[in-house]
């Protein structure tokens, strides 16, 4: 089945970064439609469409809007989460680079729904080119008088994965260290500057214009009933044609990997698929006949996550995979809550002892137990994101872990595709105190 472009519709034929081009294909008509409706009616429409959040949690976007405390005397805020930092994910980036006006149109519609005149787009600092394109598009649309009394501010992050977590994002946007807040209170009640706030992922918001174009009813018919619409799937790793593919939700994973992405590169064997970005449990080759949607993936014990598949071939040592993955989450741990701050570092130490052959069988149990002690005890999910994949490697590729212990080292010798891979945390920390801490 071919790609079904909704968020990226028209991007092959035209330069949709130009306002005129976007309007030529009917761009911004959704805003007029929306503004002709009452906020309540609009929210009703969005709820009907049953658009599920593309940022990871899959929470229905319309439901979220309905939770906004619109009676509050405070201003209401719409915040777009463009911090896309999950390893494996690069879909939001393509939307902002190729169809910025679709995102902006979505913002204007969503803002009308929650009666907000203040929109912030928090874009990760590394996305410089995308920032420039988006900022220019915002400027062009504003000058064209499309905003009415709405103000859209594009705010750049500065390099911290945790700022993708919605409450950490709010803290960062408020000028603080990007550390998550305890919930409740939830953002729709008390979010940015203590005011009611709607937070959505780039792709979620960029899908909203399609809902107004098709009408909720029609939109709900696309994709699969439990998850309507399309998603941009980022696929990377050991495939022939990695990249972004916009497909209906429910498309079989095998089709994405073997048809769209051209199968495993270099004639190697498929070993593992991490389907939602590096933070979710991995699947074995016999598990890939699964529809790509929230519930189907949930049913086999993993997550839809960021719709980002990392494909791993048979050259890769799963312990090295676990080490590199955990080093990332340890490096990105914000340091606020104890289990994540301490547990992720401890996990790295255990995994390295397994890799270098100094571990015992008891250390496998320890690794498991440290993981369990993080799960469900942390302030936000980052700590759990470190555990989910590693736990799946340990259980699904247990023989490989055991082999490390029994052979007193890595069974791959130096031939693993991740052999000797360097992580930023292997380099340096910010302060002398930090540097000492590394020894």
């Amino acid at each position, binding site marked *: 089945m071919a790609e079904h472009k909704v968020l990226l519709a028209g991007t092959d034929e035209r330069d949709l970064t130009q306002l005129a081009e976007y309007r030529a294909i009917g761009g911004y008509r959704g805003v007029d439609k929306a503004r002709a409706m009452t906020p309540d009616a609009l929210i009703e429409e969005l709820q009907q469409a049953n658009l599920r959040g593309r940022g990871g949690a899959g929470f229905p976007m319309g439901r979220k809007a309905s939770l906004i405390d619109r009676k509050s005397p405070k201003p209401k805020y719409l915040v777009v989460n463009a911090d896309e930092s999950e390893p494996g994910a690069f879909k939001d980036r393509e939307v902002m680079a190729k169809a910025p006006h679709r995102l902006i149109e979505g913002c204007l519609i969503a803002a009308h729904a929650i009666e907000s005149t203040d929109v912030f787009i928090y874009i990760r600092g590394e996305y410089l080119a995308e920032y420039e394109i988006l900022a220019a598009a915002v400027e062009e649309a504003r000058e064209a008088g499309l905003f009415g009394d709405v103000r859209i501010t594009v705010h750049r992050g500065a390099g911290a994965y945790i700022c993708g977590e919605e409450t950490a994002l709010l803290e960062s946007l408020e000028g603080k260290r990007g550390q998550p807040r305890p919930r409740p209170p939830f953002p729709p009640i008390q979010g940015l500057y203590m005011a009611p706030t709607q937070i959505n992922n780039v792709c979620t918001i960029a899908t909203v214009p399609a809902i107004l174009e098709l009408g909720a009813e029609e939109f709900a018919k696309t994709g699969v009933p439990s998850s309507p619409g399309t998603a941009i799937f980022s696929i990377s790793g050991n495939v022939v044609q990695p990249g972004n593919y916009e497909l209906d939700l429910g498309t079989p994973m095998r089709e994405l990997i073997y048809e769209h992405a051209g199968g495993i590169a270099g004639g190697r064997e498929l070993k593992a698929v991490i389907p939602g970005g590096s933070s979710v449990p991995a699947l074995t080759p016999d598990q890939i006949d699964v529809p790509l949607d929230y519930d189907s993936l949930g049913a086999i014990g993993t997550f839809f996550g960021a719709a980002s598949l990392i494909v791993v071939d048979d050259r890769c040592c799963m312990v090295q995979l676990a080490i590199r993955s955990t080093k990332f989450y340890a490096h990105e741990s914000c340091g606020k809550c104890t289990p994540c701050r301490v547990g992720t570092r401890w996990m790295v130490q255990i995994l390295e002892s397994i890799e270098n052959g100094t571990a015992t069988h008891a250390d496998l149990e320890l690794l498991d137990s440290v993981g369990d002690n993080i799960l469900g005890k942390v302030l936000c999910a980052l700590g759990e994101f470190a555990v989910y994949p590693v736990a799946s490697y340990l259980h699904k590729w247990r023989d490989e872990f055991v082999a490390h212990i029994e052979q007193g080292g890595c069974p791959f010798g130096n031939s693993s595709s991740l052999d000797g891979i360097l992580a930023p945390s292997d380099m340096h920390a910010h302060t002398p*105190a930090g540097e000492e801490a590394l020894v």
Partner: protein
Amino acid sequence: MSTELVRVTIDERDVHVPKGTGIVETALAAGVEIPVFCYEPRLGAPVGACRMCLVEVEGMPKLQTGCTLTAQDGMVVKTARTSEKAAGGERATLEFILVNHPLDCPVCDKGGECPLQDLTFRYGPGNTRMSFDKLTFEKPIPISPTISLDRERCILCYRCTRFSESVSEDGQLVAANRGALSVITTFEDLPYTGAFTGNVTELCPVGALLPTQYRFEGRPWEIVEVPTVCGLCPVGCNIHATVREGKVKRILSRNHPEIDEGWICDKGRFAYTHLRAEDRLAQPLQRLRRHGLEQVSWEQAIDEAERLFRAARGRIVTVLSGSETVEQAYALGKLLRVGLDSHQATLPEEISGGLDAYRLPLSSIRSADVVVVLGDVPVAERAPVVDLWIRSARRNGARILDDANDPAVAEAERVVLIWSGPGGRGSTTVAKLAEKLGLAEREGCGAFYLPETPNGRGVADAWAACCDEEGGPIDSIGLLVVSGDEAAADENVRALAEQAEATIVLSMFGGLSAGWADLVLPGTSYLERDGTFVNLEGRLQRLRRTVTPPCPDELEWIAELAARFDVDVAPYAAAVFAEVSERVYGGLAFGEVGERAPLRGYPEAQEHVAREALPEPRGKPRRRSEVRLVAYKPLFSGAAVERVTELQFQRPQPELELSPEDAQRRKIATGDLVTVGSNGSAITLPARVNRHLRAGIARVALEHANGLQGIVELAKAEEVTA
């Protein structure tokens, strides 16, 4: 928080608490302890960082942090005591906290009074599963001369940084880095400076932030905590003195919710070592012929005092410091007034009962709508903790104004006036204002005067009450009795001594009296006295003798001398107080003053002694080149502070504060040298532009003012020299 009661079940026990009560408090009400580290309600909203308080809540799949939950009707909570799941969470968190914690408890000053130690003892794992390298840091490092930081012991509960950010609002103690490398630090290792830094040593739940003075000074089982009241400023914070082997080793706060909420200033916390100052006097000194002062026995000193008193009967003038206890002032007054017909005494500031009608507990500042702070002496320099109440009022949305005529004052419901010098006439001035605004009967309204003396009011009342006669004016000073270190340090008083035929000085320190006294009688510190103080709220509080002084208590020898003049003065505080109380405190018994004294009303405002108060700097600058120079007495100054080396870094820089307006007009930037002067005398100092200073005002610490006050010419230094 509403007053609606809700039912919450904790570990099968039902309690009824106001809706919105924290679950930690709710559990306590049910007699259940939920262990916490980061939770500390005085620091603002809970942060849920340490995860020590995990509990199971019916209807919620995941464990929840008790500290971030509030009581809702019908809520069913299971703590680790009744829920295996919660117990698992508790064990997990405790293990994680201990993974990097060093095992140096035996040499840790926190040992024995450490929440982490206690919780580990009760719920912790017996062994460790951590077989890898722990995080290591250089330790301990001084974050100031008074506080040491041990980063290995730090459990990153962020109590200290939250205090710095949202209580003292100094923004100096912060967290740096991310994840496992997170550390507590100051900027560029600059010392943590400010009026309140020491509080973080009490907030820290482990041995990471500790008072350096207390390092290796005592183990919990060797010490006693004696409850008393701080005597170094008019706030009268409630404190504990940690005493070991007859020595004060440490000062801790002793939360009085209406006065200090458990915060004390660094002077009150760290200045106690003045008790052991090098020039501390134990023996009397007497001027023998013209040789200067020599040590003499107490018998000889008392005889000499008696001789000087007799010689000057009726012509004795007393200079009080306002730091005497009520009892000392009364006893001395009775001796001199009843026994020697010498009634004239002076205090460094005018004291009046004018504000008695506008009394409020300090804590009520927090709930004010408008706080008007008058006068240009920084509140923290005069009455530090009051500054914290004002800050919390601002955080609660109160407007802080410097002008009582602001329309907002008239509109506001709850108005609080605060007078912060300069000059000693505050109480009268504020009283007038308060009357004009009609604050007397209004709920939540009141007025405060921040005196210069810790117990001026109590001393004035006692002196007034000790005798019914009134003395007429005297032509010459036969004997000048200088009571207390503040008086002894006062230039004007020394000038007065020139005119006196003889001078007796009562002082703790030789350094203050050398040279100009004829007889020096060693004094005691507020930490060594039994008696009472009256703070700036007008609250009568109880001082306790935490350690025995190196010299006899004042009351002992005053009583002995009094006897020689047939005056009956009891040698101990309780009895003296009983007498004062009859006349001033409505017969309240010494024992009833209370450990956490309530704010009581006075039956009848007394008539008061007063020295001609320091002239209140009047008049607005006339010429554009002029400003009004405010020379204030810094918090970190005075006889006690001068004798504590660790506190010297806290003393104000030699610099002149300017308003942005005055700076701009003269093209002065922070750091530029400026000169201020009036008729002849002038000082040149680096300028600091202070956005919060009013135009036309310049401010400098007294010790750098070189006697300058009031209207002065201000100019950039070059211009003058050129």
